[in-house]
């Protein structure tokens, strides 16, 4: 299952490290990554592959928990919905 993970918050040291470390622990493979500062906010988007048989709800809860820990907003959604909205 491919997912889009977005991480938005106030910029500080170690956000990418924290998020990608947790993804590695969860065996989530990063396929594409984009990071920028948009209107002063740290904004990162990742296209990632969840491991076979992964529990989506548990992964989501885990990443959102990490977001709370490090003070950023983490969202995760299956990738198809973004294609559905924008691609013919």
């Amino acid at each position, binding site marked *: 299952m491919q997912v889009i993970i977005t991480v938005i918050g106030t910029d500080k040291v170690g956000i990418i490290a924290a998020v990608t470390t947790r993804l590695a622990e969860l065996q989530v493979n990063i396929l594409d990554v*984009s990071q920028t500062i948009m209107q002063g906010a740290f904004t990162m988007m990742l296209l990632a592959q969840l491991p076979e048989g992964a529990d989506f*709800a548990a992964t989501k809860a885990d990443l959102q928990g990490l977001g709370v820990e490090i003070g950023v907003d983490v969202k995760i*959604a*299956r990738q*198809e*919905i973004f294609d*559905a*909205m924008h691609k013919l």
Partner: protein
Amino acid sequence: METQQIKETIQMISEENLDIRTITMGISLLDCITGDMATTAQHVYAKIVAKAKDLVPVADAISNEYGIPIVNKRIAVTPVALLAGADPAPDFRLLAQALDDAAKAVGVDLIGGYTATVQNGCTPADLALMTSLPEALATTDRVCASVNVGSTRSGLNMDAIKLMGQVVKDVAAIQPENAMKLVIFANAVEDNPFMAGAFWGVSEGDVAINTGVSGPGVVQRAIADQPEATFETICETIKQTAFKVSRMGQFVGKVAAERLHVPFNIVDLSLAPTPAPGDSVAEILETLGLSHVGTPGTTAALALLNDAVKKGGVMAAERVGGLSGAFIPVSEDANMIAAAKAGHITLEKLEAMTAVCSVGLDMVAVPGSTPASTISGMIADEAAIGMINNKTTAVRVIPVPGKGVGDSIEFGGLFGTAPIMPVNTGDASVFINRGGHIPAPIHSFKN
């Protein structure tokens, strides 16, 4: 990875209130007819629970996985008046209770289809259902009712309209909130997923999924970004936005249907407001350049909005149906509530607006002293607009006992607050009491 598109989608959902307003499962109950109401009610309960037991968990899982809120999970069933024809003395309380129990058992918030379609005439079962409405809506929590009293091909059943004026009064006399669950239609559609008027027409299949999308905030924001745009540009913007919003409905509906192993039926391309800030259809009209909704120009603004939403949405969905347009419920729209409180919008202006959008006089609170014949007159006027213009119209009006103009009634949650609106005090009783039928209109010489 299209970061701009991802950002836009997330912004629509998290900041502009884009959501799937409803996933509604249509269930035919024609195979539940037995001739004995008690047995029929048992079959109704069993079928609904069997078919819809996974509806709420599936919708919740989709919402969680795809990050899009699915606000309501609902069921629409065959007009239940049709289930009673073979019972010489149908006790509709049994059916109402079965529907309510089934809705609670599967966890849906509302179930629609406590319905009679009487545009040509009333069977004894239709009459029994209509007169049972005050008790049925008072003794159930989740049952929604509708009565179709007219159509372009059949004309208006004025006897039914007279009766329904009194029924609305009787429903509201017990508890005004109960009148929120009763819609009186002309040209009712068979696949509408929105409550309170949803039912599953007899021409529909056994079970299917329908979705209704919503996103007034998304449209409003897109228009606000172009303060000096011409109408052509505005219409183009609305079309593009409606396309994106409708794609969500199509996608989510299809996924839900696959997971529930039932066909996917239609997407209803409606703009449905809620009282939440930034989720208002009236605000879209105001953003187009009207100081407040109700100002001259409002009907034209609504017409362009309604049409552009359809044009954008039609291409986004495989099958479009339901009501598909902009809703203008007074109590469910923050800017509409404000305009009604300030006297900027009147029932007469709302009536004019209903000629160009879906659906009708919706969630309008009126003084409790409003006579039944006046409510029948309002129903007849709306039905006439629908009949002549070949569109769906409806009345969901709440006469609030003991309250008058200047008061308001709080419905809570998505249903909002309704200021009591002034009603023309003229007398329609002689007209309404004539009885009979207004014939179907001629379909040529259109003017």
